[in-house]
């Protein structure tokens, strides 16, 4: 398993030795304030935006693909946490756009929603979301997510990676190295019902 972890870490956007930079996306003022606090308590650098469009602008994806020569350092995002239900671009649409981007697809995306809808959860996970959190989001949820990302382990297993990496340029070593999703981890995701 050590070899798999090494491969995974190399492929992720470089995590600063000190702290994760998290981009949080939510149209609700209240929720933006809360998620920002949760992330700061979890020792993250936080950028909060109020829409999917602004999130893409921040990442530099709004006008099409960013030039890789542009200074990426100032905006290096290690994790994106987005609300699902937002006017204009939904969190799901934002998730898709990020996963379609060759530069940003490796950034883990976590989707948050107040609605516990199984098909919604499944489609987000299948589209490549790392995790689906039910609102109101708790500090324990945020800490768990950020801990995983910091350790470079990715989340709970391989079902997502097998389903989402359909494109030809997927990294073969990742899909073979990660273990298949065990029934218990699948159940734990669904256990939020």
């Amino acid at each position: 398993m050590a070899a798999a972890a090494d491969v995974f870490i190399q492929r992720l956007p470089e995590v600063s030795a000190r702290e994760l930079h998290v981009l949080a996306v939510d149209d609700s003022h209240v929720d933006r304030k809360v998620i920002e606090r949760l992330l700061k308590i979890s020792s993250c650098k936080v950028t909060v935006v109020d829409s999917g469009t602004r999130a893409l602008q921040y990442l530099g994806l709004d006008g099409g693909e960013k030039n890789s020569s542009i200074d990426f350092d100032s905006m290096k995002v290690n994790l994106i946490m987005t609300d699902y239900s937002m006017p204009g671009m939904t969190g799901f649409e934002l998730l898709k756009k990020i996963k379609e981007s060759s530069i940003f697809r490796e950034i883990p995306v976590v989707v948050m929603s107040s609605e516990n809808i199984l098909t919604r959860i499944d489609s987000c996970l299948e589209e490549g979301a790392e995790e689906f959190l039910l609102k109101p989001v708790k500090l324990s949820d945020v800490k768990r997510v950020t801990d995983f990302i910091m350790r470079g382990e990715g989340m709970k297993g391989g079902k997502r990676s097998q389903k989402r990496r359909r494109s030809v340029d997927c990294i073969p070593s990742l899909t073979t190295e990660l273990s298949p999703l065990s029934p218990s981890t699948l159940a734990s995701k669904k256990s939020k019902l």
Partner: protein
Amino acid sequence: MDKVRLQREAAFIRSSLLDQGYLDEQFIQLEELQDNDNPNFVEEVVTLFYTDSARLIYNIDQALLSNPTDFTKLDDYMHQFKGSCSSIGAKKVKNECNGFGEYCEVQNYDGCFRTFQQIKQEYITLKKKLETYFQLLKEAAQIK
């Protein structure tokens, strides 16, 4: 009024809000995010809640006045309002919102209208109590 007495009064309001189901566990979660570096975090979040709620309540009132009734819009505003309630632990108000959603789904205007008057009442009650609560805490904090 002395500091301890003010604090006790505030604590009493807080316990009753929790005991009577106006507030739930989420409010306590927010309190746990407060510390010496962020001493007013809960009040700041609640203040944002008032601002958001005022806007959404206005929007819903307007939507209820519009003819024909746009139930999709109503449902959308209510969903946002319910989300805010949930985020600060406003349990009673949030639960009233469920009824509204059901009426929206079957496009029952009267049901929506009636339920919304109840929601506004519960919201105003909660807001008054919370305002008193934070005011007492503030007054207590100002006494050495």
